[in-house]
C-alpha cells in the first residue's frame, strides 16, 4: 500500500513535468492555453492526493483554488484576451523547438541532481516533490525566455507558479493564509498583465515583446 501511495504521488508530479514539456512543444496559442489548463488540473490532482496522504484538509482548499482559478478561470480569460487581440493564428518561437526541448531535459536533470544532493535528510516523498517542483519552475522560466509573444510569457509565468505550489504542498505545513495570499497575488498579477497587454498593443500594434527592445521611449 505504501508503494502504491508513493507511486501515485510520483505519477502525478511527474506528469506535471511532462505537461511542462508539452507546453514547450506547442507553438500555437490556443493549444498552449489548453495544455496550461491541463497543467493546472494535474496540479490540483497532485495537491488533492497530497492532502489525502498527509491527512491535511486545508490542502483540499488549495487544490480547489488551483482547479477553479488556474484550470478554468485564467485559461478562459486568456482565451478571450487572445480573441480580442486577434492573435490566435500567430506562431512564434525564438529558438527552435528541438533546442528548447534539449535545454528542458538539461534543466530537469539539473534540478534532480541539485535537489537530491541538497535534501538528503528529508523524507523520500518530499525530496521527490521538491525535485519535480524545481523542474517545473525552471521549465516555466524556459518557456518565458523562449517565447516572444507576451501571452505565452504569461502562460510561462503561471506554470512557474504551479511549480511553487507543488513545492509548498510537498514540503508540508504551508499555512493556508500564505496559500490564499499567493493565489490572490497571482490573480492580481494576472489582471495587471491583462491590462498591460492591451496597453502594449495600443502603443506598439503588437504583443511581440521583441519590438519593445527597439523602442526606448522616443515615439
Amino acid at each position: 500500500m505504501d508503494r502504491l501511495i508513493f507511486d501515485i504521488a510520483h505519477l502525478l508530479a511527474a506528469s506535471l513535468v511532462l505537461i511542462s514539456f508539452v507546453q514547450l512543444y506547442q507553438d500555437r496559442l490556443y493549444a498552449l492555453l489548453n495544455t496550461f489548463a491541463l497543467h493546472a488540473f494535474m496540479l490540483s490532482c497532485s495537491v488533492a492526493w497530497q492532502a489525502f496522504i498527509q491527512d491535511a484538509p486545508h490542502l483540499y482548499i488549495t487544490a480547489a483554488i488551483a482547479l477553479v482559478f488556474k484550470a478554468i478561470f485564467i485559461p478562459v480569460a486568456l482565451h478571450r484576451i487572445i480573441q480580442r487581440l486577434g492573435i490566435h493564428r500567430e506562431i512564434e518561437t525564438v529558438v527552435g523547438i528541438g533546442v528548447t526541448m534539449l535545454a528542458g531535459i538539461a534543466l530537469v536533470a539539473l534540478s534532480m541532481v541539485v535537489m537530491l544532493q541538497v535534501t538528503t535528510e528529508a523524507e523520500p516523498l518530499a525530496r521527490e516533490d521538491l525535485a519535480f517542483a524545481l523542474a517545473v519552475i525552471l521549465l516555466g522560466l524556459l518557456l518565458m525566455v523562449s517565447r516572444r509573444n507576451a501571452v505565452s510569457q504569461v502562460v510561462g509565468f503561471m506554470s512557474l507558479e504551479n511549480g511553487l505550489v507543488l513545492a509548498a504542498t510537498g514540503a508540508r505545513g504551508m499555512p493556508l493564509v500564505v496559500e490564499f495570499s499567493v493565489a490572490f497575488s497571482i490573480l492580481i498579477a494576472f489582471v495587471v498583465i491583462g491590462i498591460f497587454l492591451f496597453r502594449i498593443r495600443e502603443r506598439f500594434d503588437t504583443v511581440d515583446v521583441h519590438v519593445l527592445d527597439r523602442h526606448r521611449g522616443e515615439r
Partner: protein
Amino acid sequence: MALVAGFLAQAMQMALVLIAAPLLTGFVRKVKARLQRRRGPSVLQPYRDLYRLMRKEVVLAENASWLFRVTPYLIFAVTWVAASLVPTFASGLMFSWAADLIAIIALLGSARFFLALAGLDVGTSFGGIGSSREVMIASLAEPAMLLIVFPLALVAGSTQLSNVAEFMVSPDVGLRVSLGLALIALIMVAIAENGRIPIDNPSTHLELTMIHEAMVLEYSGRHLAMIELAASMKLLLYLSLLACLFLPWGLATQGMGVAAYAVGLTSYLGKLAAGGVLLAVFELVVAKMRVFRVPEFLGAALMLGLLGTLLLFLSRSL
C-alpha cells in the same frame, strides 16, 4: 521430445508472423475504408497482390548491380528473423535467448541500411530522395528507440523480451510513470519506422511526399513482393512488440501445453485486431506532417525516453 515440442512451437511462431502479416495490413486497410464509408478491398487482398507479384517477371534497370537483386531477399530474411524473435503467443521459446531488444533494433537497422543502398543503386532521382529521407528519419528514430530500451531494461533488469514480458505481468511492476512515457515514445517511433500517416503515407505515389515508396519504386515482380511482405511484417513486429512489452496478459510460456498456447494465440490475435483498429482510426484523424516537422516529432519521442530514464533514476535514488 521436449526438444521437438520446443522446436515445433518456435516453427509455429515463425509461420504465424509470416501468415498473419499480410492479413494485418489488409485488415487495417479494410477498417480505414469502412471508416471512410468505402467498401474497400477484401482483407485477403494483400495475399492476392503477393501471389500476383510472385508470378510476374522482374524488370531490372540496365545498370542495376547485384546489390539491387540481393537486397529484397536480404530485407525479407532479416525482417522475418526479427519478427519471429518477438514473443507473440508464448514467451520463452527455443530461440528466446536471442530475442534481445537491442538485437532486434540492429536487425531492423541493417534491413534499412540495405534498402537505402538499393534505393541509390539504380541512380534514379526518386530513389535518391527516398533514401536520403529514410536515413534522416532513421538517424532520429534509432536513438529514440534505444532510449526507450533504457527505462524498460532498468525496470525489468533485462533486455530480453521474454524476461521483460514475464516481469510486466508480475506484481512487482507497480505504477510507473517511466513505463507510460516509454509506451508513448515507442508508439511514436513505431509510427515513424513503419511510415504510417503523420510521417509518411503508405498508400501514396505523390512524388513530393513519398519516402518508403520512393525507394522501392524501381522494384517489380517477386522482388517487390518480398519488400511488401517485409514491410507488413515490420508493422506486425512493432504491434507484437507493443503487445508483448506493455500488454503481456494471456501470454503462454514454453512447455505449458496446447491449451495455454491456444489462449495465448487468441489473446494475441485480439491484441493485433485492437491495435489495427486503433492504427486505422489514428491515421484517419491526423493529417500528414511536413517532412521538416519530422525531427520535432521524433525529438519528442527521444525526449520522452530520456525523461523516463531520468524519472526512473530519481525514484530509484530515493
